[in-house]
């Protein structure tokens, strides 16, 4: 790919839209996972008393619930990201390639 072609693509409004949207999307979802994981890990490290508390009087503790929620949110966020990317990013990226003459 020549420098002028690169330049053309970088300045293309659809490229900007695509990269901005994907980056924002990727970062927001990554943050959800990282924050959830951090709550779990830091809770274990610095708030074991809270993590040991019973959720509603039974044996289920906050710690176990948070751990399982991190696992489930990983699956759910992956699903939403993939669903959205299949419908939005791929369309945008296809249009971009066509307009730049790569298809």
């Amino acid at each position: 790919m020549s420098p002028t072609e690169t330049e053309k693509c970088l300045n293309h409004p659809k490229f900007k839209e695509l990269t901005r949207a994907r980056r924002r999307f990727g970062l927001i979802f990554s943050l959800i996972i990282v924050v959830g994981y951090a709550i779990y890990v830091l809770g274990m490290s610095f708030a074991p008393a809270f993590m040991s508390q019973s959720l509603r009087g039974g044996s289920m503790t906050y710690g176990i619930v948070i751990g399982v929620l991190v696992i489930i949110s990983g699956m759910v966020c992956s699903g939403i990201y993939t669903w959205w990317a299949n419908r939005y990013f791929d369309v945008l990226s296809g249009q971009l390639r066509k307009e730049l003459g790569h298809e």
Partner: protein
Amino acid sequence: MSKVIKLFFGSVLGYISLALYLSGAAHGAGGDISGAVVKQPLNVSAIIMFLIFVLATLGITWWAASKTKTKDDFYAAGGGITPWQNGTAIAGDFMSAATFLGITGAIYGFGFDAMILAVGVMAAWPVILFLMAERLRNLGSYTFIDVVSYRLDKKPIRIISAIGSLSVVIFYLIAQMVGAGKLIQLLFGLDYIYAVILVSFLMICYVSFGGMLATTWVQLIKAVLLLIGGTFIAFMVMKSFNFNVEAILSSAADIHPKGVAILAPGLWLKDPIAIISIALTMMFGIMGLPHILMRLFTVKDAKDARKSVFVATTLMGYFYILIIIIGFGAVTFVMNNPDYHDAAGNILGGGNMVALHLTQYMGGDFMLGFMSAVAFATILAVVAGLTLAGAATIAHDLYSKTFKKGSVSSAEEIKISRIATFALGAIAVVLGIAFEHQNVAFVASMALAVAASVNFPILIMSIYWSNMTTRGAIAGGVVGLILSIGLIILGPGVWVSVLGNAEPIFPQVYPTFYSLPLAFIAIWVFSLLDKSPQAEKEKALFDEQLVRSETGIGISGASNH
């Protein structure tokens, strides 16, 4: 070629029957002199099911061998794997016997603290999807090192990344081989040394003849079997408690000698640095595993890479939830059951056998045979993936791209890959035997720590930070490598357990709390200090890399499978 294949397969089958015969004979004579692990009586249903698996996978290898003609076929199955197949195979590549047996055993013993081994995995995979999978597929052809070296000085960067990659592969192989030897000894009554040779032999067979296509199918079939087995056991546990999760936990707390402490933090990981270190190692180590990242190149484009990781994440999330149920459930059915303990009250076969004892309790000898065969298949699938990644690093990244500067023909590269596969298989056997009586837990932690401290920082910075230069990447790699391996050697895993010193010099099992941030700092500082003309050239190439990583535009015909 086909003659060679026939000869090879003939000898494999001959070998298996010989090994089984010998082990049977040794057992019949009552000869077992090995230490901690006590061989089990020959488990006939397990052996029959395992033989069916081996025959089926060898048949697939035969078929795959006829389709493996170019290096593209060998490393990436020609890019012709569908997202569903690839996602299942990724799950199969990742969920090792250590996952199923080890995490179940750890939750059985320590309860809540051991859940971090499952939660850490599920923190890593979605982030691989959001930040890495598509861009990796767009930038590389066969290995993650292709991506790292995209705009940097090829020779030094490939060498340092290859050292990181091969260290991970070899450490992981040692851990798998020793685990495999002991497990097979336990499950099948096969001598350790035969078990290790058998695993290595089958793995060489899959990889050298069937390449990525055969490896993919071995991993895929094994993943399906493991998911079926896991679902069955977890379902039976749930059913025993009328599908009341709370009842599983309270029953476990009643029976476990530590009581309700198993539902809370503190039984296993004692201080915050230990917890954060293991959390970082799990999450970022997974994001730097070469054999996992390699699977992203087996699909046709970035979209399929994304779908594969989604499928893999979903399957693994489901499986880890099963494991948590199985681990806590095992306390109720195994802990007070005299059938699964010896006269001294120790659990038969050690903590790793908990999952299989529970299987036997829930499904009888048939299910035990099934899950034992699946555990063996699991080891084969994981070592095959590791060996293929190691062979690709040696033949593609080092031999072809670094030392021959890309002037190697496809046929020659495949030949080198096969030689590398044999060499890795031989190394695995030798190290497996050498480490038989060692505590190998540290080797597995080294694999993940090196992946987190060397491969991951270089890879993520090469994709996202335009100012990274070759000098910065190498500085980060060297810092990460020395700290991760050095601190493990000075830590309790080697300094105390292996070398026999009284006190560790470095108190933590995992060095990642220090090695990961310092590797990033080294990349950052040395890149910013690098004012060489080469550095300017590398930064200028970032725009082109960005366009290609975001859109796939610029993938040449050759690597666009």
